[in-house]
């Protein structure tokens, strides 16, 4: 108390210690930096994925993934464009040509990632798979959201 009084009386400024605040702020920045996720390319807010207990994130990235998003209305989103099932062969043919013209890549090695809405019709999913098969694609990955418990039916 004596010291503070002396400081104030002598006109010295009482400065707060900034170190703990800066420490905490840097900790927070580090936390958010580690958790930040910019890979939203293959995610779409219109799609509500089905839930599955066994859907574990893959250990290694899928080879040459092509993501098809199936909405509940039955349309397909590919590369930012919306297609109907009947229109889907056109962009698939384009993808196939790109793969065939790229050295070291093949249609058979590419993976079609199907992010279908939980309310999408199973028949549409089957038709999409059929359209991909017609264009030579063989590998499919059906995407689901991971849950801890089995869904009651």
């Amino acid at each position, binding site marked *: 108390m004596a010291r503070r009084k002396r400081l104030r009386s002598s006109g010295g400024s009482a400065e707060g210690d900034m170190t703990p605040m800066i420490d905490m702020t840097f900790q927070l920045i580090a936390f958010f930096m580690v958790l930040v996720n910019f890979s939203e390319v293959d995610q779409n807010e219109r799609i509500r994925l089905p839930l599955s207990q066994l*859907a574990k994130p893959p250990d290694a990235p899928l080879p040459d993934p092509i993501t098809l998003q199936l909405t509940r209305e039955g349309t397909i989103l590919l590369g930012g464009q919306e297609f109907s099932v009947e229109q889907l062969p056109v962009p698939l043919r384009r993808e196939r040509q790109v793969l065939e013209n790229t050295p070291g890549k093949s249609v058979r090695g590419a993976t079609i990632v199907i992010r279908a809405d939980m309310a999408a019709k199973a028949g549409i999913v*089957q038709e999409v798979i059929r359209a991909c098969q017609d264009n030579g694609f063989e590998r*499919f990955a059906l995407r689901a*959201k*991971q849950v801890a418990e089995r869904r009651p039916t």
Partner: protein
Amino acid sequence: MQVRHTQRQGNKIELQMTPMIDIVFQLLVFFIMTFKIVTPEGDFNIRMPIAAPSEGQPDPDLLPPIQVRLQSTGTGHLSAIRMGEKSLGRNFEELNKEIRQIVGPSTGPNVTGAAEIEIDADYALRFEYVMDAITAISGYVGEDGSIITLAEKIKFAPPRKP
């Protein structure tokens, strides 16, 4: 020389903290705004080449695919599960038990993944039920939390157009 002189006098050089704190808070706000909790997503890998016309005699060691039929109500919800001729009600646990009996776990003596399962779903059935069926067929979570794989070869029957 002048500078040295002032240092000798013991004057403190005060660091300007304000710009740094400004930037740090800007960064903090940016990361808070872009932060999004993303639940993990996983894949069921299915290798399904187009059915080529069979040449010659089929392989006698190759088992015929086990048919899993999923029937839907008018609104797209599940009405019945059938495996072969057996009705399993609407319970995917039952389907999982049946598959376990036929295929056996991957650690067991049975040949894992050899059995091929064909999912034959009604056109209007909601995809979430197909995913439930794939989950029940693919495996189950053991008591220690590890995933025990059952059938790996899953394929879809041609779509049943309404």
